[in-house]
């Protein structure tokens, strides 16, 4: 049994890292908003999904123009990433303005309910637009970076099988890491990043220190949503087919990743995302093997939720977070 697990390990690692990178960047959006507002931005998964659709639309649009085929794929990807990220960032800012800002002093149940409402609206608007232009809400984007690469893991040791992946795997992983490093630099080294951390620590005192709290919150939403949207584009490139309902479960998983790493902690979200991606892929590859066929790969969502519940019960502050005492 161990041998079989080891054989599939390189492939599991490759797939897990791809999925983990997606989770990690989406988890950043959750964790940033939570750090500042102590609010779960339920609609963040839908922002990710909108990003995937907007990105695919741009790809189709640009590649439909004749002269565009002269552009190298990589530059095309960067253009689309930037365009999509700015649009979804603005969506995020608008979302905060409409659904969260008026409720900042309301009981905590209420913003959660608006968040669910907003995510329904986004889902349906995207479905409507996709169905209107495409005839079907399941959209397949143009295939990019699709050369197959074989990782010769068997050359290292004969217990491993070779792993196969598309070039897009490298792109996804690379872009995700660049995004994370950039964000880390922004939050820790720049003036606005410092303001963001100050607001997260104590909103009222920060406002006394001449920090424009509303602006900082808007910027947080912009960055979080822009990252989410950019990840959506990466997701569309990697997996090809998207539908308006991919955001919800993926958003939940990313949230689990954020909790796993310690919610409110940016590096924690990155670690948690990668870990969750790897664990999930490992589970879906080996669950039926480990349990003798009783539980199959279809229990991988159960596995993710079980991780969430275990973390919340035994280590609610997450892997890298600090425990907090509740204020009376």
């Amino acid at each position, binding site marked *: 049994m161990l041998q079989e697990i080891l054989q599939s390990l390189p492939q599991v690692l490759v797939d897990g890292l791809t999925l983990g990178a997606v989770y990690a960047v989406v988890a950043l959006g959750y964790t940033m908003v939570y750090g500042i507002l102590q609010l779960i931005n339920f609609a963040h998964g839908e922002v990710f999904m909108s990003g995937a659709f907007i990105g695919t639309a741009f790809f189709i649009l640009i590649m439909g123009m004749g002269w565009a085929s002269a552009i190298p794929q990589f530059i095309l990807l960067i253009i689309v990433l930037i365009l999509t990220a700015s649009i979804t960032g603005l969506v995020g800012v608008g979302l905060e303005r409409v659904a969260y800002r008026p409720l900042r002093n309301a009981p905590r149940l209420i*913003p959660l309910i608006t968040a669910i409402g907003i995510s329904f609206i986004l889902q349906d608007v995207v479905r409507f637009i996709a169905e209107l232009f495409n005839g079907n809400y399941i959209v397949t984007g143009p295939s990019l970076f699709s050369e197959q690469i074989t990782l010769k893991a068997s050359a290292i040791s004969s217990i491993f099988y070779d792993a196969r992946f598309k070039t897009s795997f490298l792109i996804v992983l690379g872009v995700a890491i660049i995004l994370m490093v950039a964000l880390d630099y922004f939050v820790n080294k720049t003036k606005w990043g410092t303001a963001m951390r100050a607001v997260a620590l104590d909103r009222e005192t920060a406002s006394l220190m001449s920090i424009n709290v509303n602006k900082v919150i808007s910027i947080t939403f912009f960055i979080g949503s822009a990252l989410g949207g950019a990840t959506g584009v990466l997701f569309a490139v990697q997996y090809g087919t998207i539908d308006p309902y991919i955001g919800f479960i993926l958003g939940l998983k990313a949230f689990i990743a954020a909790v796993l790493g310690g919610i409110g902690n940016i590096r924690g979200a990155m670690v948690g995302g990668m870990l969750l991606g790897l664990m999930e892929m490992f589970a879906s590859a080996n669950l039926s093997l480990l349990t003798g066929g009783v539980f199959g790969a279809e229990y991988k969502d159960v596995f993710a939720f079980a991780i969430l519940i275990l973390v919340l019960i035994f280590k609610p502050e997450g892997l890298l977070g600090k425990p907090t005492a509740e204020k009376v």
Partner: protein
Amino acid sequence: MKGKLATFFSNKQLQVILYSLFIIVTSAALYFSQKSVVSFLLLLSSLLILHFMNLKNVTKWIVALGLLFILIPFASSGGPAFQSYMEVATMVGIYISMALGLNIVVGMAGLLDLGFVAFFAVGAYSYSIFATSQASNFMPFGNFPLGGESFWGFLIVGGIMAAIAGVLIGVPVLRVKGDYLAIVTLGFGEIIRIIFNNGDRPINITNGAMGIASVTPPEIFGMTLSFPNQFYFVTLLILMFTIFAVLRMEHSKLGRSWKAVRENEIAAQAMGIPLVKTKLLAFALGASFSGIMGVVFAAKQAFIDPTSFTLMESFTILVMVVLGGMGSVPGVILGAAVVTILNLQVLTELTNWLNQLSLSGVLTIPDALSPAKMQKFIFGALLVAFALYRPKGLIPAKNKIFDVKKLKDHRPDHLNNDTKENSIPIDKVQV
């Protein structure tokens, strides 16, 4: 003018006369027309008008029961659409009961549960597994399927099973607060659905994604219940029990502890409310109403599969509670009725109407925009609009107001001798 209108409407006799007139006209319209959704809805709305009328509670209840048990089934029996009306009314009853259950958890105890449909599923599966030959796959004894009489027993079994599921979910979840709770319950809802969806291996318990078909219909006194109009009465009876129980619970010691926990957990604990027990009871009782209706649902549909218990259903029930008013029993009843009718009648009718319009070439609506598909958008818009502008819902919850003087007069003698400093004014205790 306004004053005159007010006196006009506060006149009790006039109210009653107008109301009776309204009922007579709408029920006659319903009885004599072939298929008139409008008059059916108007007749149902008479119950809402009744709620706002200036009458004694007892009178209101008697009139409402008369309407529900006699007039509505009779008036709608006139046309060929009788069974479809009854079908809608039964679904409304089932959803009201579930929404009342969720109202206990969300509205009264303030625990946002996003996986509520799981309990409905537990109830539905517990009946349908034993009322088909499915149970013989894993039960070492007994003769399955059970007869239709077992339905009545399973109402209780389903309720208990759902309550157990509620406690099982509640125990790990209780250490988690607020937003986390929402996510964890959502996760549990999905877990239960996935388990039912894959429950055909290694032992075939739930028959997996195929679902369980031909569930034995209930029987009473040798009569088999299989038509919607028969289920209407079953649902109505259970619904009456649910409403009665919820109303009694709301102002009981337990109900007041729920509200205290909702307002401030730490303060409630300091006042001596056992948090764990109170929250678990909220989960268990809320779940049990849902489980009971699950049994009815399984028997009515005679076929269930995991697709009936998706996340969307949980959110639908949440929309009902938020729309009606969290914590308000009449509000939740109204919310559930409005949402169910919107789903089953208004949206489908609108779609048909629009289709006819586009067929006759008056105007063309793209298929993507057909109202039946807009359900999610409508729900989302409702949730946002209500949370922003009317967070207390259509009929806001009212706290019972105690008359200080009356309470003082009823105090036992030895308490009346207290010095003034020791007695806490009742109106200040109210939260």
